[in-house]
């Protein structure tokens, strides 16, 4: 079992041409607003990471069964993972489905890590009510402060495919590209996880995601 794991691990790493510290775990913060498909993208990610031979853990925030709340799924993977939580300054990737959420969860990002953010705004209630302002300079501020920012138009691209629902698979495509996990057969997992009649659209979305970063 262990040998099988190490072989598989070494194989995938070799393909990527990376120098790997086997002790170091990687982590991802998938963040967005309820209803955007963050949970689906996270579920596909963890299934793929498991197939790649990693130990993997995920924590989700469950709360009121209510619309419009902030949603986060924290994923950690590596040879052996203990704590299922991702601490501040720890995530290799913050995958933000919404602009404001990328700023809210930036504290999770480790030095040198990547932020992939969907160029899409969902206004919180205090903003809708005119009590607070939706910050205007998010991307400028991020660009100034962090090293690896990738802004993609996942919602817009999804609508071009025919439904905004596939935005989560576009985000997934971008994530696996950034994490250098694109060698894996993600398409078979996607095909199993989405309703049969939407498989084609989702596979198309995944391709777009891969190319978006």
């Amino acid at each position, binding site marked *: 079992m262990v040998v099988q794991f190490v072989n598989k691990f070494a194989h995938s790493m070799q393909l990527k041409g990376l120098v790997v510290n086997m002790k170091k775990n990687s982590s991802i913060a998938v963040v967005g607003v309820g209803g955007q498909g963050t949970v689906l993208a996270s579920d596909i990610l963890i299934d793929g990471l498991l197939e790649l031979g990693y130990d993997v853990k995920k924590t989700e925030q469950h709360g009121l069964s209510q619309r419009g709340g902030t949603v986060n799924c924290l994923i950690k993977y590596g040879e052996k993972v203990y704590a299922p939580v991702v601490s501040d300054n720890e995530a290799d990737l913050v995958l933000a489905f919404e602009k404001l959420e990328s700023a809210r969860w930036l504290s999770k990002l480790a030095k040198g890590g990547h932020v992939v953010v969907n160029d899409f705004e969902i206004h919180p*209630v205090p903003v809708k009510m005119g009590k607070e*302002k939706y910050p205007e300079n998010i991307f400028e501020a991020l660009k100034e402060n962090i090293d690896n920012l990738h802004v993609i138009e996942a919602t817009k691209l999804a609508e071009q495919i025919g439904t905004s629902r596939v935005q989560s698979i576009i985000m997934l495509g971008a994530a696996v590209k950034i994490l250098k996990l694109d060698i894996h057969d993600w398409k078979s997992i996607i095909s199993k996880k989405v309703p049969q009649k939407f498989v084609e659209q989702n596979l198309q979305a995944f391709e777009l995601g891969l190319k978006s970063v």
Partner: protein
Amino acid sequence: MKQVMLGNEAIARGAYEAGCHVAAAYPGTPSTEILKNISKYKEISSEWSVNEKVAAEVCIGASMAGGRALAAMKHFGLNVASDAVFPAVYEGATGGLVIICADDPGMNSSGTEPDSRNFAPHMKIPMIEPADSQECLDFVKLAFDLSEEFDTPFLIRTSTRVNHGSTVVTTGERKNVPIKTYAKNIMKNTNIPAVARNKHQAVEERILKLRDYSNTSELNRIEMYNKKIGIICNGISYQYAKEVFGEDASYLKIGFSYPMPDEKIKAFAASVETLYIIEELDPYMEDFVKSLGIPCVGKDKLPRCLELTPDIVREGFGLSDTKEGYSVDINTPVRSAVFCAGCPHRGIYHEVSKYVGKIVATGDIGCYALNILPPFSVTDTMIDMGGSITAGIGFDKIKKLSNRDLKTFSFIGDSTFFHSGITGLIDAVYNKAAISLFILDNSTTAMTGHQGNPVNGKTLMGEQSTMVDIEQLVKGCGVDPKNIRVIDPYDLMSTRAAVKEAFEATELFVVISKQPCALLKSQQEARKGIHCQVNQEKCKNCKVCIAKTGCPALEISNGNVKINKVDCNGCTICQQICPFDAIERIGG
């Protein structure tokens, strides 16, 4: 098969593989998904019970009848169920009997954060604590076997990060456990005092046997690495300790935490230089270790409040954190919880909010508790499930004694009414409380994610069942029919009239507000294509609609009020409030 599973899903799988026959629960975060997942296994007769005491009793009965049974609840639930679990410990278990109690350190979805481990020595019930999903599955299976072997119910105590964490699990097959033949045995299955006196002795002897088991069990596992530091830890704290200390310390991982393994603790403590105790909330293990006369370091370094994290553990023990990150100076407005667009609670609280200052509003547990925030700001008090009615009776007594001019309004949802409200209503009838009770019937247990309950007549097994009629029930409790009103909270005029009557009532008065939760699938389909829109020519931009409803479908866009037609379900509360007749309903 190897897969990643939620802790709660793994508990359900463990019950399935253990050959469990009956499972019952009342929903409560973070335990809800246990029964939701168990219901996928048709071999198990599962139910949403009306409260946790009922769930526990259903399972105790099933165990006495010879089957294996599991009851699941959040920490508050064990408070409710404790009345049944205490005697069940004396009565033992014929079929394996497992009680799951999910604690919520950090109060992610709870109003307090009690440490339910303290129940185990109080109830004298053996307790097991898993640290990840694989252990959830394995420990549930083991608990069923041990329950039968030691003739006692078992408590499995989890915490949010275990219940809602997803980790790798290898699943197995279901064991076919035959239901035992039933034989009447009043010495075992009753607790009349003459019988119970002997049984207490038996319970104490059982605890000694379980202590031996705890000392030898692999559930209490020693992992020796560096002997300078020895760490005793449990559940999720084990994961944090391992993450922070790695192989720089040795571990005694406590999986069987009542009775605590005294001999194993002594041996472990003797083999390390310094002993740390890492546990969330109370010093449950630390107090036990100290009672053995063993010095250790625990709560003087770690907080008693909220949940731990690897960073808190690291900081507590003075280890340096080398992680670096980024920060930006951006104000991020919160996505505060509000009544959803189309929420039926909006209409009733809009009308009641006009009486703020003239009423005391005793509240209860459910989505409607969000009325505590602006623009409604109605609720004065919140205690526990059912506490709205009974606290209202207390307020009414003081009102009468002090001649205070504050009418008491009590608010309770349908599921909470069935859970613990009915007894309070009967008390109000019997003791002549002149409160006005609002039963907010939205046809579901909404807050925890739309579980079935007696009003919607759909069982967890997917069967159609009797829909319990709240109006008949209220009448049956003895409320005078002339003091009962049934209203549609989408209709503000009739709601306003009922609230006025409730305010002026001099006897017990009940308003039943009936309108399904807007997020129910059936409701979304029924109202498809129906929405409101602003007639920009008539709109004077006064924004009263936004200020009074706090509806998230309304927004200010380029200075004008707009209605998001995807979120809006055409409930028309904003239309009825608009002073300029500038909102129109489309469709339906």
